């Protein structure tokens, strides 16, 4: 089935104003308000000075909009910017490494689960899916001790290894559904032509599954970019902090720099929101055509 989410049901021509469309528009309008007002307030605050942010009644449009919060964040010579850019870089390093390694591990596994009939296949597949069921805190203590044993505490490697497992179950699930829907005839043709199985997988099947791989990769990236608890526990040095943990530096004993915090929260959200906006249809399609159809 190649119907995408945006296809209109039915397909017959319809009059313009219909009660169910009005109801749908109303529902979405209200939910959009709920979703976007907090985001808008974050952005509005990020363009205010400390004093303006503490004005009551609150103003949506700052009287004197200021870029000073962003200038502070992005100036590598200033104290604030030095740290913020460091955290940003750390987040990019950790998330990118997780995405590359996680996808590299998930793709062949999903392919094997889809195509091969080795013993223990079902049990292993279930075990991987169940990974999501375990409370994160259950793993926190033993992993912390394990990482300490291997000397990985306060290293990015500890986070990359851990984050890989967060995305793996869903990535494998998504991709397996995708491979299930790719006809085997193409590989057979390659095999008959004398290609090895691995070659058929890499050169024939993988190119066809690019949308699925992209969807899985975005998911892994977003998970890694946003993670807080493990980063809080595994990292000690300021130089290594990722953004979610680094943001706590805006809270001090006496004053909280809310405009600065909102500006950095905004900057931190941009990569994942943009990434997702551009690629969301792959993600929803993979969910629809792959995972849920199996």
């Amino acid at each position, binding site marked *: *089935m190649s*119907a995408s*989410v*945006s296809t*209109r*049901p039915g397909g017959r021509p319809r009059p313009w104003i219909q009660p169910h469309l009005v*109801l*749908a528009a109303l*529902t*979405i309008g209200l939910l*959009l308000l*709920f*979703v*976007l007002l*907090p985001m808008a*307030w*974050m952005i509005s*605050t990020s363009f205010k000075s400390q004093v303006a*942010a*503490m004005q*009551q*009644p609150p103003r949506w449009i700052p009287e004197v909009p200021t870029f000073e919060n962003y200038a502070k964040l992005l100036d590598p010579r200033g104290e604030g910017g030095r740290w913020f850019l460091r955290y940003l870089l750390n987040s990019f390093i950790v998330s990118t490494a997780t995405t590359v390694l996680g996808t590299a*591990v998930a793709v*062949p*596994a999903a392919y*094997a689960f889809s*195509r*091969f*009939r080795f*013993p223990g296949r*079902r049990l292993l597949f*279930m075990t991987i899916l169940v*990974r*999501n*069921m*375990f*409370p994160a*805190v*259950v*793993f926190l*203590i033993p992993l912390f001790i*394990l990482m300490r044993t291997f000397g990985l505490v306060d290293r990015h490697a500890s986070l990359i290894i851990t984050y890989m497992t967060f995305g*793996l179950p869903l990535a494998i699930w998504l991709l397996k559904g995708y491979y*299930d829907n790719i006809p085997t005839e193409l590989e*057979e043709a390659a095999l*008959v032509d004398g290609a090895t199985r691995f070659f058929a997988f890499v050169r024939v099947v993988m190119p066809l599954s690019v949308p699925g791989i992209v969807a899985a990769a975005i998911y892994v990236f977003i998970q890694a*970019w946003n993670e*807080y608890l493990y980063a809080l*526990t595994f990292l000690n040095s300021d130089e290594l902090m990722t953004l*979610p943990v680094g943001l706590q530096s805006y809270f001090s004993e006496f004053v909280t720099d809310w405009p600065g915090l*909102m500006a950095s929260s905004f900057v*931190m*959200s941009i990569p994942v*929101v943009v990434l997702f906006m551009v690629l969301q249809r792959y993600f*929803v399609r993979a*969910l*629809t055509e792959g*995972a*849920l*159809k199996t």
Partner: protein
Amino acid sequence: MDHAGRGPAVRALPGRRGATKGRSRASEVAADYAYILPALAVLVFVVGYPIVYTLVLSFYETPPSLPGRFWTGLGNYRTILTSAEFFDVTLNTVYWALPSTILAFALGIPAALALNQGLPGQGILRGLLLIPWVISTVTAAYVWRWLYHADFGLVNGFLMQLGLISRPILFLDSPTLVIPALIVVNVWKTFPFVMVMTLAGLQTVPRELLEAAAIDGATAVRRFWHVTVPYLRNVLFVTFILLLISNLEHFTIPWLMTGGGPARASQIWSIDIYTIAFRSLQFGLASAYSTIVFAIVLVFAYLYVRALTKEDTVR
């Protein structure tokens, strides 16, 4: 999930054997495993080992002041299960997790149905509604903490401007309001997940069936209940269990907004375990605590696996 009868798998094809002439069955299987080995290795290292380790450690006392650990049998379990604090924290956790999950469904399902009606610009609307799910929980927690701010927050400012209240409401400092206030944040963050899963589930409902029902004169409401809902049931169940479990083990929102306060009013399991482990440094006790939470979650995990392995997960 089962592929028996879903069209021939590569392995079953005649002639494919010939393509790998000379290879024994054992080496075939070994080659198959090679594809999943990397994934498996990572999972054993990061999932399998920790579970065993937690279980073992839960039977030991690990005094923060002394090196080493001391066998205490079920002592840690007794300490936790007989404490009034654990009982309170469990109540908080349920009070936080269950309404969060139900409300996320109450918003997520109508959102998905509305998005499925063929409005212009659906893709963009869907993308915008997914924003809370995509951004970091940390961002969500800070933005809402700022919104709830007693003196300068938008929520209080707005309510006072409308004249609904004369003094600001201390949402995060009130023992009775703190959990409802946190639930709102959680629902904001998670309803898009329910929405996207429902939306994907809706695509699997066969169009012909809906049209046939319409031709037979079934009203929209009846079509929804008798055609759509049966198809969605399993997706919704799996989503519900997933979300409930993730809410039961949730950490970040209360941790960053209230730290479990005021006076432990929003202390939930994960925060309790984290505090015992990394503030009091009682790893043994915290491991027993984790194991208890794990056992509770396992019940739901079992239901999840059963739903997933059902032959007709979706259709």
